[in-house]
C-alpha cells in the first residue's frame, strides 16, 4: 500500500523548480545549501518550516519549464513525502518517477497550509480528513507504479536489468524518503 501522510505545505502555480530548487544559477553550491533556500523567493522560510514527510501541495504546472533532476534530489533531501498538484511540467514529473518521489495530479482547492494530508497511490485518493476533503487522483500506469515502488529507475534496473515490468503487488514497501544524490 503506497500511502503517504504528512502536513500540507502550499506553493502556487507555474513553479519553476530549476529556478527555485536547483543550483542551476548557483554554480558551486551543494545540494544542502540549495535545500536550505528552496522556494524562498516564493515563500520565505518555506524550507525552514518543511518537516520530513510533509507533502507539497501546489497548483498548475508544478515544475513548469523545469527539467533538472537535481531539483528532485533536493526535494528528497528536504524529506518531501509526495507532491500533490493540479498539473506538472512533463520532465519534472518524469524526474520524480525516476527518483521514486510520489507525484499525484489532484485539485488542491480547499487545502490549507499545515493540514494533515493523506495520499494513497494504491487507491488513487487524496484526503484531508479534518476538512472532509476526499479527491480521486488518476491511476498511474502499471510500469510507472513499478518504477515508483522500486524507489526509482536506478533501483528498478538494478533489480530488473532486462526491464521486465511486473505490476506492483497489493502490498508494497513505500519508497525511501531520503535518497543519496
Amino acid at each position, binding site marked *: 500500500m503506497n500511502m503517504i501522510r504528512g502536513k500540507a505545505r502550499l506553493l502556487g502555480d507555474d513553479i*519553476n523548480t530549476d*529556478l527555485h530548487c536547483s543550483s*542551476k*544559477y548557483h*554554480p*558551486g553550491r551543494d545540494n544542502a545549501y540549495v535545500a536550505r533556500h528552496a522556494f524562498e523567493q516564493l515563500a520565505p522560510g518555506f524550507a525552514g518550516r518543511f518537516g520530513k514527510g510533509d507533502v507539497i501541495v501546489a497548483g498548475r*504546472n508544478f515544475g*513548469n*519549464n523545469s*527539467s*533538472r*533532476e*537535481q531539483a528532485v534530489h533536493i526535494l528528497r533531501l528536504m524529506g518531501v513525502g509526495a507532491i500533490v498538484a493540479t*498539473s506538472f*511540467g*512533463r*520532465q519534472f514529473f*518524469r*524526474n520524480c518517477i*525516476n*527518483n521514486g518521489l510520489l507525484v499525484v495530479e489532484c485539485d488542491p482547492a480547499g487545502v490549507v497550509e499545515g493540514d494533515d494530508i493523506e495520499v494513497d497511490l494504491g487507491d488513487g485518493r487524496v484526503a484531508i480528513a479534518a476538512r472532509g476533503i476526499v479527491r480521486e487522483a488518476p491511476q498511474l*500506469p*502499471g*510500469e*510507472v507504479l513499478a*518504477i515508483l515502488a522500486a524507489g*526509482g*529507475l*536506478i533501483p528498478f*534496473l*538494478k533489480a530488473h*536489468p*532486462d*526491464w521486465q*515490468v511486473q505490476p506492483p503487488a497489493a502490498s508494497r514497501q513505500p519508497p525511501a524518503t531520503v535518497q*543519496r*544524490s
Partner: protein
Amino acid sequence: MGATIAEKILGSHAGNRTARAGDVVVAGVDFAMLHDGRASNALKRIEQLGAKKLPFASRTAFVADHYSPPPHPEAANIHREMRAFADQHGAVLYDVGDGICHQVLPEGGHLTCGDLVVGTDTHSTTYGAFNAFGTGVEGTDLSAVMMTGKLWFRVPETIRVDLKGRLQAGVWAKDVTLHMLGRLGAEGANYKAIEYAGPAVAAMEIDDRMTLANHAAELGAKAALLEADEKTFAWLKVHGARAPRPVTADADARYCQRMEIDAARLPPQVARRHHIDDVVGVPEVEKQRINYALIGTCTNGRLDDLRQAAQILKGKRIARGVRMIVTPASRQVWLAAAREGLIEALTAAGASVEAAGCGTCVNITGHLITGDGDVVISSANRNFKGRLGNDNSEIFIGSAATVAASALTGHITDPRTVDGGTWRPASKAA
C-alpha cells in the same frame, strides 16, 4: 484506427507493437546526447547505476556547449570528467568550440528519419525536423539508456498543426513558433507531441525546420515532428547519416487537437519582456528601443539565420548604442558563414561574432550579463526575468531577421521594412 508519427516511432522501437497515446512502452533508443549543463548529474547517475558494461556508449555524444569555454572551475572540471569518460567508454565527444548539441548531432550524421533520440536538454525536440522523435530526458534516464539501450516512455497525444499557404518573405519559422506560443501559452502543449505539416513547412529549408521543431520545447511539447522529403534526405545524406526510415501519420490518425495557421497572413512576431507567450506582432512594439541584439542559440544560430542578418546589415552599421553579438550554432556553421563572407559583413557592421556554442542564450554560460535597464532583442528561446543574469533587464524574443533589423535601427523593427529584410534562401535541389 490509424497512428500518429509519435505512435508509430515509439511502437516500432518497442518490439513492433501497436502503441497508442497513453500507453507506456519500453523502447530501444537510436542515439543519446549529454551536454555539459547536465553532465555532472548524469555521470553521478551512471556511477550510481553501477553497470559493468555500457554498451550504448558508442551511440552517445558528450557535448561541451553550455560552458564553451568554461566560465568557472566547476564547468572546467566537468569538461575534464566528460573527456575522460568519453575516452574510457568510447562515447563521441564534441568539445569546446564544436557547437551546440542540437546542431552537432544532426551535422555529425548521428540521427536519421524514423529514429528515437534522447538528450539531456528540453530542446531535443529539434531532431523532429528530421522526422525523428527527439525528446528531453535527464541523467537517470541517460544512465538507463547507456546500460540497456532502452528507456520507458509514455506515448504522447499529438496536436496536429497545418500551416496553410506560404510564409511571406521576411517571415520565418520563429514567427510561427512565437505565434503558437501566443495561441497555446507556454507549456500549452505540455506532454503532447506536435506534428507540423502543410505547404509552408515543405517550403522551409532545413535550418528553419530545425527552428520550428526546436522552439516547441517552450510549449512544453514532448516532441515536434515533421514529415521527411527530398530536402531532408539530401541534407542527411550530405552529413553521412544512416539510411532514412521516414514515418508519416496515417490519414485516420487520432489527434487531441487540430490547429491551422494561415501562414501567408502571419507578420513577424515578438515575445515581449519576461514572458515567452506574451506575443504580439512586431508593429505593436516598434517604438521599443533596444541596446542588445543577439543572434544565435539552438533556436536561431544556423547559416540561414546568419544570412538573414548579413542581408540586412552588409555595408551598413548597427545603430549607435546597440551592441550586437552573433554566435553560430556550430563550427560547421561558422566556417560556412566565413566562406560566404558573413563573418566579415557582420563584424564590419559592428557585431561581435563569437566561436560556436550556446553563447548568449542564458547567463550561466558566462558570455553575457546585462546591466540595469538594458533591453535585449534575442533570437534565443526563453526570456524569463533574470535569464541574462539581471532581473532589472528586459528580453524580447524574435527571429534572426527581426533581431538584425532592430540592431540596424536601434528599436524593434519589422524586417520586411528594411533593405535585405525580405531575402529568402534559394531552394536547394536534392
